[in-house]
């Protein structure tokens, strides 16, 4: 059986005719061609497929696409500017060598993006605990934690700077 669903991904609406058993990650990758989101375990533990669903990090392998009709889905492809300019989080990952093979990276980025949006004041220890949600086989995690922590600090500083200027 084929089902018609409408998905909103990175602000763009898509109409799809799919089998309802298709998971969100397969639909993103294979039906929409958004191959930045990776598949690592298909049972919700490695986190390579982490995307944002209405702003919250979620495992795209544990959701059927049909379930998230009407939700706002965001994937790694939404982070950089269309001209390829990386966002602050992506730049921090590069500066701290928070990626090697790059396979876990999109999931780590979306996990961090969703978490920092909700908890901008997160401490490094809290960030470490959140990074523990996803598996990385290359880095030993330290530089991922440092990259996210650095990004959070820079965002806080920028926010403070903005406040200072608006009150000055």
């Amino acid at each position, binding site marked *: *059986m084929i089902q018609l669903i409408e998905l909103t991904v990175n602000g763009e609406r898509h109409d799809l005719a799919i089998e309802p*058993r298709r998971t969100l990650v397969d639909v993103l990758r294979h039906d929409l061609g958004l191959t930045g989101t990776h598949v690592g375990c*298909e049972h919700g533990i490695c986190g390579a497929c982490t995307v944002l669903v209405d702003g919250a990090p979620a495992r795209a392998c*544990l959701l*059927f696409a049909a379930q998230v009709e009407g939700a706002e889905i965001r994937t790694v492809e939404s982070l950089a500017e269309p001209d390829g300019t990386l966002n602050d989080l992506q730049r921090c990952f590069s500066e701290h060598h928070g990626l090697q093979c790059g396979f876990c990276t999109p999931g780590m980025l979306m996990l961090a993006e969703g978490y920092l949006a909700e908890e901008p004041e997160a401490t490094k220890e809290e960030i470490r605990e*959140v990074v*523990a949600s996803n598996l990385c086989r290359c880095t030993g995690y330290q530089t991922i934690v440092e990259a996210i922590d650095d990004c959070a600090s820079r965002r806080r500083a920028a926010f403070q700077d903005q406040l200072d200027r608006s009150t000055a």
Partner: protein
Amino acid sequence: MKPAAFTYHRARTTAGAVGLLTELGDDAKVIAGGQSLVAMMNFRLARPEHLVDITHVEGLAGIRRDGDSLRLGALTTHRAVEKADLGDFAVLSRAMRWVGHLPIRTRGTVGGSIAHADAAAEWCLLAVLLDARIRAEGPSGVREIRAVDFFRGPFTTALQPDELIVEVVFPRPAPRAALTEYADRRGDFALVAAAVDLDADRVVLGGVAPTPVLVERAGTAEEIAGALELRDEPGISAHYRRGLVRTLVQRARKEASRG
């Protein structure tokens, strides 16, 4: 690791969901957060012919104080509970850090976890500990089941195939309660979990039997551990499990006494 084919049904109301469950019978399974179910479906260990999606049902998510009691809508996520300021029910928020990881907690639900009935799952322990009432809606209306009567065996509950958990009610505050666990790796299901309520003098243990084990008028941690009937299992002896029970009950009590 792709699930077998199924027919997808989206319920818009609880009555609609119950109607679908009644019509489809044993071949149907409710999906809420899906954090356990979809993994099992991907392994084809679960292969329902029909999925009834209740995530679009209005009004099933939410945390509400009602006099002494706290009412959690079935679709309330672990993360919502973790983030909520629950006052003298704060044990629930604190316990959420033991539930998987953040991306699991953003999707997984209170009702789903209780319906799934893993004997080591935090919500099952908390429900039994705090004498929660599980409100289930069926064709003939809503009934309340006490948590102690709800869990029947591993992944087996008192829920009928045509019933749906709509709410979990925690009848009274537990200002001096705590839950703690041990697993070799962060976020894993606990080898042993212990939840205590000092005021009610209750201890609930997970990971020691097919369902959460309630100990009322509990004695010392040593006595609780000693009274358990445990068997040696591959990789973990009864002796070790008993030791973990002793440690975790002590630690949970210590945490609880700090309030």
